[in-house]
C-alpha cells in the first residue's frame, strides 16, 4: 500500500447540514439516550465593573472620615471616591 498514493484521486464529499438537520439529529440521538453532556460551568457571581484598585496613603484621620462617611451614605468607599472625583472634575 505504501507509496502508491491511491487516495490522491478521491475528492471531498461535503454534506449540506442546515440548522434544522442538526436539530433533527439531536432529537433522534436524545430519543436513544445520546444527550447533551457538555460540562456546565459553575454558577458564580458576575465580576464587579469596579476592577481598578487605588492604593492612596492618607492620614489616619482622613481615612477614618472617608470610611465613616461612606458608611453613613450606605455606599462603598470606592463609590464615595467616584462621587468625589465627579465633583472635582465639575469644578
Amino acid at each position, binding site marked *: *500500500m*505504501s*507509496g*502508491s*498514493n*491511491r*487516495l*490522491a484521486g*478521491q*475528492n*471531498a*464529499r*461535503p*454534506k449540506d*447540514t442546515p440548522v434544522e*438537520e*442538526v436539530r*433533527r*439529529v*439531536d*432529537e*433522534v*440521538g*436524545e*430519543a*436513544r*439516550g*445520546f*444527550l*447533551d*453532556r*457538555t460540562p456546565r460551568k459553575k454558577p458564580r457571581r458576575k465580576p464587579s465593573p469596579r476592577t481598578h484598585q487605588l492604593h492612596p496613603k492618607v492620614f489616619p484621620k482622613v481615612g477614618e472620615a472617608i470610611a465613616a462617611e461612606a458608611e453613613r451614605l450606605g455606599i462603598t468607599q470606592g463609590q464615595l471616591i467616584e462621587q468625589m472625583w465627579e465633583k472635582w472634575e465639575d469644578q
Partner: protein
Amino acid sequence: MPVIVMASPKGGVGKSTCTVLLASEFARMGADVTVLDCDPNKSLTRWASHGAPSGVTLKSDVGRSEIVPTIRSADGDGKIVIVDLEGVASQLVSRAISQADLVIVPMQPTALDAEIGSEALALVREEEEALGRAIRHAVVLTKTSAAVKSRVQMELEQQLSGAGIDVIEPSLVARAAFSELFAYGNDLTAMMNDPEMMTGGKVDKAILNAQAFTEAVYERLK
C-alpha cells in the same frame, strides 16, 4: 475525501487504537489526515505529544458545538478526517455520525461490548431515516485472540452477519505493539525501526494486521 467516525458509547473498546492505526496507514499511503480528538481522556493528544507521523494533523478539544464546523473545515480534496469520539452516549456522538461517510463501531468479542455497541448501530440507522440518506457503517472486532477464535467471537460474528451488519475483516488482534503506540507515539513502522522502542510483542505481525485492516476500510470508502 471521506470522514470516518469511530463510535461506541462504551469506553475501552479500541476507538483510539483504530484511529491511530488508520491515521498512520492512510498517511503512509499519501493522504493528508486530520484526526479529531473528541475524547475527554485525550488519548490521541497524548499519543501525538510523543510525536505524530508526518501527514497527520491533530485537533484536540472538539466539543458538541464545534464538531460539525470542524469536520467541514478539515474536509477537502486529498484529505481524510478521522473522528475519535468519547465513550459515552452524547449529542457529540450523534452529530459526528451525521457527518460521516463511514462509521466504524469497534467492539471486543464480549456480550457487554456487543450490547452497548449495538446502541451506536441503532443510532446510525435512525439517523439514516431522519436524514434520508445512507450512512455506511461497519463493526470491527478488537482485541481478539491471535491464536484461536473464541466461541463468543464466532457467535457474535454470526449474529452480526445475520442482522445484516457489515463486519470488517480482519479483526484487530490484541497486540502489545498497538497499546505501546500510546507510550511511544508515531507509528508501528517507526517502532520497528527504532531499537530504543522496546515492545514485548511482534511488531511485524501488528503492522500486517494494521495494513490489512486499513485496506479493508479503504475498500469501504470507494
